[in-house]
């Protein structure tokens, strides 16, 4: 099938992104995808203006078949496309599958070459897109230069159409219209203009992460209360299933306004960077927001993160490191200046453990022998995963440019390079470790039952696991009870799991950063894993965070925090997520102390769901009564009613103090 036939196919269906890609098929990938974006924005279906303080508002425009994608450049509904035309499906399959992830599917728990990002909102707000265009004109690479200039045409058209919508709605005299007459092409001069610009850029980016609003906007603050405007923006994030934003570490009135604005809203997942001297006013606002439900903000150890990043990346200056933020669920990146794999892969350590257990336990001379067999196999598979990530990056750099991110993230314009091909100032790759807690508990069980007390032989253990018996449930200590024996195992194992990532460098540069970010994937990740001696039956879920497996933390929240702190969290800087559920009555009196105590011991992050068990049990039976009940899951917030029944049960079973 010829390109012009594909072009016509898409044009006839109003699929402007798809059509744009086939307009000039002889051009480079960068130019073709730039054209695709241009046509998308020139024809973007704009909603009616209803008087909101910001515009656009509501869901971003999506067509049925082909859309821009901030992670993969393009997203295709292959099934629907095949129903309409097998020929076109075949052509697209050849064109859009030039890049395919090479990561082994068993190790994609939580991620498979996803890329979340933070546009450099701040630079656009204070410099304006007109200055960007001047910089683009100086790019020597004609493909990147032409592509970005083409994209700017589309953005200007989009902007003009927005002004027309406002005019048609009789809003010419509104503050919004006046602001948009200036931004985003000229610098913002007021806080409101900056927020209008920020919202516009958010929609350009495809509604991903929201930036460091309090830190970047405070220079324009003159005492205004913008809580309702922030809230309008957050609702735009929520309706588009957007992701994360960061607050702090230099707290200011906008920090509090953002915390007030996020109350009861599912997204963005706000991340509050906590310092030991965080003011009471900020704590009060944070606790009030957590209390309102939604799981925001989660809490981050500012000192811990800065020290860790300084150690991992000594060449990154402090003025760049200050932009530390969790993107997507909460993958550590630098806002506005980085391209971070978020998540590139998720190694299923429980799956590896189970296979090694079946293969090597019987022949292991002692516990250390078995442990070494596991670490050896894990290291081998982890290296394969790292190689596959690098190979995926190499191919993606060639075939899947991201023109919009090239425009919005530094230093792509100044380097004249695509976002996926060396343009960003910093690169690294975050890799998830799934099942780590299951492995810790299983190792303790094996050590005690088979090798220390010799309560059972290795063969007997395997046989009893196969028979469906829960092994290791009540007779051995678990992660979460602050047992010295288990804490030592946790420290040892987490250190060994992370160590292998220091042996390789990603193709795009930087480092591989291990993390523990499960969000909803801990349920499916257990499906292919047989019974393990942490009390888990075959196919059951893995642990959902670095806390205890559900129901094991029987000694209280301080014991749980001590246990979590025993992991080498500074090596899991991609973010080691800890889920905690606190009774709402305890929140104001204990949360700051718990957080400070945890962070002092090296804990890096904590996210708190605050809801009563009665509420959750009722919501499980009658989800329709709780459409707005939000819970925090492995890095982000989700509506309880949208979770599967298995996920809802899992959230309820997560221990509540």
């Amino acid at each position, binding site marked *: 099938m010829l390109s012009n036939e594909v072009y016509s196919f898409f044009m006839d269906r109003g699929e402007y992104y798809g059509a744009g890609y086939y307009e000039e098929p002889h051009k480079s990938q960068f130019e073709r995808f730039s054209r695709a974006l241009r046509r998308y924005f020139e024809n973007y279906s704009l909603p009616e203006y209803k008087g909101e303080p910001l515009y656009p508002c509501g869901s971003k425009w999506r067509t049925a078949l082909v859309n821009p994608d901030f992670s993969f450049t393009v997203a295709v509904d292959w099934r629907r496309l095949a129903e309409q035309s097998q020929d076109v499906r075949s052509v697209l399959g050849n064109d859009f599958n030039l890049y395919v992830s090479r990561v082994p599917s068993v190790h994609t728990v939580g991620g498979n070459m996803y890329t979340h990002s933070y546009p450099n909102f701040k630079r656009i707000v204070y410099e304006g897109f007109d200055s960007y265009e001047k910089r683009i004109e100086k790019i020597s690479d004609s493909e990147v230069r032409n592509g970005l200039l083409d994209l700017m045409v589309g953005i200007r058209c989009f902007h003009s159409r927005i002004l027309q919508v406002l005019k048609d709605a009789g809003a010419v005299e509104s503050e919004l219209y006046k602001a948009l007459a200036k931004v985003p092409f000229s610098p913002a001069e007021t806080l409101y203009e900056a927020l209008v610009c920020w919202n516009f850029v958010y929609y350009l980016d495809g509604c991903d992460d929201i930036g460091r609003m309090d830190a970047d906007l405070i220079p324009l603050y003159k005492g205004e209360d913008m809580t309702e405007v922030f809230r309008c923006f957050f609702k735009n994030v929520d309706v588009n299933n957007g992701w994360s934003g960061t607050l702090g570490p230099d707290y200011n009135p906008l920090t509090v306004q953002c915390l007030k604005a996020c109350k009861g809203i599912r997204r963005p997942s706000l991340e509050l960077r906590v310092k030991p001297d965080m003011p009471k006013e900020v704590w009060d606002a944070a606790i009030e927001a957590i209390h309102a439900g939604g799981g925001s903000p989660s809490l981050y150890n500012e000192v811990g993160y800065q020290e860790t990043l300084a150690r991992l990346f000594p060449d990154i200056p402090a003025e760049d490191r200050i932009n530390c933020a969790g993107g997507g669920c909460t993958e550590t990146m630098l806002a506005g200046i980085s391209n971070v794999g978020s998540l590139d892969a998720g190694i299923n350590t429980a799956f590896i453990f189970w296979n090694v257990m079946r293969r090597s336990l019987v022949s292991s001379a002692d516990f250390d022998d078995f442990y070494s067999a596991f670490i050896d196999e894990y290291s081998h598979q982890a290296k394969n995963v790292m190689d596959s990530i690098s190979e995926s990056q190499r191919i993606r750099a060639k075939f899947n440019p991201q023109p919009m991110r090239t425009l919005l993230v530094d230093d792509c314009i100044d380097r004249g390079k695509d976002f996926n091909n060396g343009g960003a100032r910093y690169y690294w790759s975050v890799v998830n470790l799934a099942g780590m807690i299951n492995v810790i508990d299983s190792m303790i069980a094996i050590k005690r039952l088979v090798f220390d007390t010799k309560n059972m032989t290795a063969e007997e253990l395997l046989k009893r696991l196969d028979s469906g018996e829960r092994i290791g449930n009540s007779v051995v200590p678990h992660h979460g009870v*602050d047992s010295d024996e288990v804490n030592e195992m946790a420290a040892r194992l987490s250190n060994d799991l992370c160590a292998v990532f220091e042996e390789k460098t990603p193709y795009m540069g930087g480092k591989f950063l291990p993390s523990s970010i499960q969000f909803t994937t801990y349920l499916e990740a257990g499906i292919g894993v047989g019974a393990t001696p942490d009390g888990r039956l075959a196919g059951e879920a893995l642990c959902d965070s670095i806390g205890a497996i559900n129901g094991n933390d029987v*000694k*209280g*929240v*301080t*014991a749980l*925090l*001590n246990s979590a702190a025993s992991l080498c969290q500074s090596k899991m800087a991609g973010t080691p997520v800890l889920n905690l559920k606190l009774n709402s009555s*305890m929140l104001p*009196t*204990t949360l*700051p*102390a*718990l957080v*400070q*105590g945890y962070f*002092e*011991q090296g804990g890096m992050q904590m996210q708190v769901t605050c809801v009563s068990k009665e509420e959750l049990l009722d919501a499980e039976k009658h989800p329709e009564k709780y459409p707005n009940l939000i819970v925090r899951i492995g890095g982000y917030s989700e509506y309880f009613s949208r979770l599967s029944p298995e996920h809802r049960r899992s959230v309820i079973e997560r221990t509540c*103090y």
Partner: protein
Amino acid sequence: MNGTILNIQRFCTDDGPGIRTTVFLKGCPLHCVWCHNPESQAKRCEIMFDTQKCIECGSCSAVCSQKCHSFDANHTFKRDTCIGCGACAEACPTKALTLYGKRISVCEAYNEVKRDKVFYKTSGGGVTISGGEPLFQPDFTAELLKMCKENGIHTAIETSGFADEKSLFSVIEHCDLVLFDIKETDEELHKRYTGVPLKPILKNLQLINERGIPFIVRAPIIPSLNDRESHFSALKGIRASMSFCQGIQIMPYHKIGSYKYELLNREYGCDGVMEPSKETMEHWNKLISYGI
């Protein structure tokens, strides 16, 4: 130095300021009719027997050195010959038998308490020795408190105040705070409800005040037993007359522990007493008016 404890509970927020670890000792000279922890009264380790869970497998009698378990018509447990070794509880497959109480050294207890030191620091918390009655094992309590204080941990006890002066002074010299229970302010009613006289308790409270140790009065209020206005007035009088009293905290009656009496083969002294309503508790708090 060893003591008998029921439990060491971490992350307690109602046993003094901040986040605390509470060490519950076993043994109490009082036998309050409303006590919701009857297993805390006897000093010795003892078995609680839930007949509903018993499947009459006989595992307990097979391991019992004192022949306490017999199975004639049904399972009978001879409590008075039991030495509290716990062998039957360990052997019981259904947890129908549970051992309450264990012997522990001061060092072992301290090693558990010190685990949350970072949270004591961040919350202004510490350790509380409760029970049971901490003054009933004064040597153990004093040693443990001393060890905690020497290591910078805030110390508190929760006490009925019924003890000789020597025991009292040996303990309170290591206390930063005392949570002092006053069950009843009428001498006769106090004897009837708790089994011990009131006078020595009030005298000990005076001594604590004279020593300059801050204390909080904890007052369990039981409907139809001590919820009289005169009792509230007397409590307020204590508050007014003692400069180191930081306030009065009402502990409203609840039935949560009443099921345990059957497991101990004992009679519950508050059958028929109703738990107070929210409005009643608000009324009590108004009456007390010097509440925390």
